[in-house]
């Protein structure tokens, strides 16, 4: 699922020279960061709200199996179906089977990161079912055959010109001399095209932002309304989601919503929040006739019983991405995994294994900004450190760095050896520097010298000077 190791460095390098991406990343500061800050300033007691969010999610995780069983019972009582999938393959098979049984050929899709995780679209296409993304950002990247670069704003990495180019290339039935050089024109075109798909689709697939055990509900949170048109108009509605999203009560969602929308887009609430509790009831004017929920595990149950447990509290707001200085420099694609940024660094090793994902928790300066903005107080850096422990234990990426660390620690544990080694290192570096105050190149710790000079060490360490003074 993830990019092979070492591709991260190359992908990051490419991202840093990508002018369009770098221009888009500037929006993080003026946009997402400012909006979130403003929204939280409007709260009388933001820290209590964050603590409530953490407590709700932690409490839900503490009895996850019970809540899921309760959820399943309620969904069935409402007339819906619940399916369980251990991994991506099982989830894809379930969705495909339901669609085939209903003779579905075209399927509209609301935004679902879980469906990205299981690579659903490609699988459906191979089975002659056409998936059509309806969230504007997802639609744009589907046209371009790209992956989302941000969990809330999938087309974040693109400039308007690139969107226009894709629309002209793919909307071939429209007149070539139409004006498309403004955002309103692009949105209007997408709206018209999508309306046709909404009305003709055989089935609709959405994700779920939350699942509610006491009511058997799945909840979607959007600004566009695409998720609603996706699941209201066709006969069949499938919710593709994951097991950790369940909370006990609808009141819990009321609290979490306040955190989610402020943290994601700086809104007090999004245009649409929809609580879906089964197929249409007798007498309802519209609504799906069949309601299916596919619950995906894909490694989460193992994460639950591990030191990375708290990453399952995540409500997918994207605030950690928006505030991460590394994400702010390389963007989402460079991570080479479904979930980028600090979220991905904490979650992807649990889903895909540390062997292919060790770069993610390592490519962090541990600045802690993600921890400070997470609405449910996930200790992201602590979880990344856990994955570093796992990587170290497996000598990933190679033994040499770990060996160097152990050498340093062995010296540090023996003050006499530390002084000796430090003295030798100082002499070597000083001779390398000569008369200059700094060293430009050195065969050890080459990564430092690739980008920086190093100030030369002191002739005598502090402790040597200090002891001399004292005698």
């Amino acid at each position, binding site marked *: 699922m993830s990019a092979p190791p070492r591709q991260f460095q190359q992908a990051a390098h490419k991202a840093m020279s990508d002018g369009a991406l770098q221009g888009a990343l500037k929006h993080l500061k003026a946009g997402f960061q400012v909006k979130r800050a403003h929204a939280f300033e409007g709260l009388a007691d933001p820290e209590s709200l964050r603590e409530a969010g953490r407590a709700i999610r932690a409490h839900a995780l503490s009895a*996850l199996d019970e809540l899921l069983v309760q959820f399943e019972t309620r969904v069935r009582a409402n007339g819906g179906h619940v399916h*369980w999938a251990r991994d991506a393959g099982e989830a894809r098979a379930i969705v495909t*089977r339901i669609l085939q049984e209903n003779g579905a050929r075209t399927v509209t899709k609301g935004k679902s990161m879980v469906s990205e995780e299981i690579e659903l679209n490609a699988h459906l296409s191979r089975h002659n079912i056409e998936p059509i993304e309806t969230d504007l950002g997802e639609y744009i990247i589907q046209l371009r055959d790209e992956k989302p670069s941000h969990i809330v704003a999938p087309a974040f990495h693109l400039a308007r010109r690139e969107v226009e180019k894709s629309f002209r290339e793919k909307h071939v039935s429209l007149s070539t001399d139409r004006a498309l050089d403004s955002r309103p024109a692009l*949105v*209007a075109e997408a709206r018209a095209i999508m*309306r046709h798909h909404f009305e003709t689709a055989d089935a609709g697939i959405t994700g779920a932002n939350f699942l509610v055990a006491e009511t058997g509900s799945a909840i979607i949170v959007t600004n566009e309304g695409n998720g609603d048109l996706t699941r209201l108009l066709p006969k069949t509605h499938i919710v593709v989601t994951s097991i950790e999203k369940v909370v006990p009560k609808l009141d819990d969602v009321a609290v979490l919503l306040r955190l989610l929308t402020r943290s994601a887009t700086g809104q007090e609430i999004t245009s649409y*929040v929809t609580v879906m509790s*089964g197929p249409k009831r007798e007498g309802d004017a519209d609504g799906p006739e069949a309601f299916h929920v596919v619950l995906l595990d894909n490694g989460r149950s193992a994460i639950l019983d591990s030191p990375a447990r708290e990453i399952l509290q995540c409500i997918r707001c994207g605030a950690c991405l928006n505030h991460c200085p590394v994400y702010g420099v390389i963007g989402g694609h460079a991570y080479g995994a479904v979930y980028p940024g600090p979220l991905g660094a904490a979650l992807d090793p649990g889903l895909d294994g540390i062997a292919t994902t060790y770069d993610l928790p390592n490519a962090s300066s541990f600045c802690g900004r993600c921890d400070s903005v997470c609405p449910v107080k996930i200790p992201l850096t602590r979880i990344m450190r856990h994955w570093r422990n796992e990587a170290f234990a497996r000598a990933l990426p190679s033994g040499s760095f770990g060996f160097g660390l152990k050498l340093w620690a062995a010296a540090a544990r023996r003050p006499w050896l530390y002084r000796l080694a430090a003295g030798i290192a100082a002499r070597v570096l000083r001779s390398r520097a000569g008369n200059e105050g700094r060293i430009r190149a050195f065969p050890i710790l080459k990564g430092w010298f690739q980008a920086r000079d190093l100030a030369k060490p002191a002739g005598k360490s502090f402790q040597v000077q200090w002891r001399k003074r004292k005698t």
Partner: protein
Amino acid sequence: MAQAKDMSDAARAEILERLRRGRRSVAAHSYVHRCATDGLDRLFAEKARAANTQVSRIADVDQAPEAIWAALREANAAPRLHLSPESRLNALPWQRAAGLTILRERPSGRDAAVSEADYGIAETGTLVFFSGPKTPSSWHFLPGHEFVLLPHDRILPRFEEVISRMGATMPATMNLVTGPSRTADIEQTIERGAHGPRELHILLIRQTTYARG
């Protein structure tokens, strides 16, 4: 079909077994979000307007037809309004809006439609709609211009109050609608009318009960 059920059952058993190992003892929270409890209609109007919603006030629900007709004229929109056949708004005096044509089929993306909200949430200026026979849920997403009637006495402080008034059975769909449809997916700049309505217009009704059942 049976094989698929067996697979799902096997998956279910395995997943639940693994999840049991993740059980911990964790206390529930006791947070209560504070919100004003009076002046709700004013708070509602302020929040709704902040979310790009037009808010008008009428004294009595019977004034709705004329108010909507006037709003459509002011917006230079076609004098046509979609109204669900089952809605009790059919009993309003539409004849007073003489130039307004009422249509009872599904609206398209350029049309105007009217419905009534089940509740309003003052904290965020949000309309609450339950699915049922009255108005199809999709009508809150299909038209280009949505008009919604909301009596003052249906405005509650928070989502929590709405939940506490709901019975044991959930409707199939509960929509919380705040402002028109929007997207910021292109260059992080907001545009309206991504898929749902471009315009949302709420008529707050002072009279607390509908004149007609």
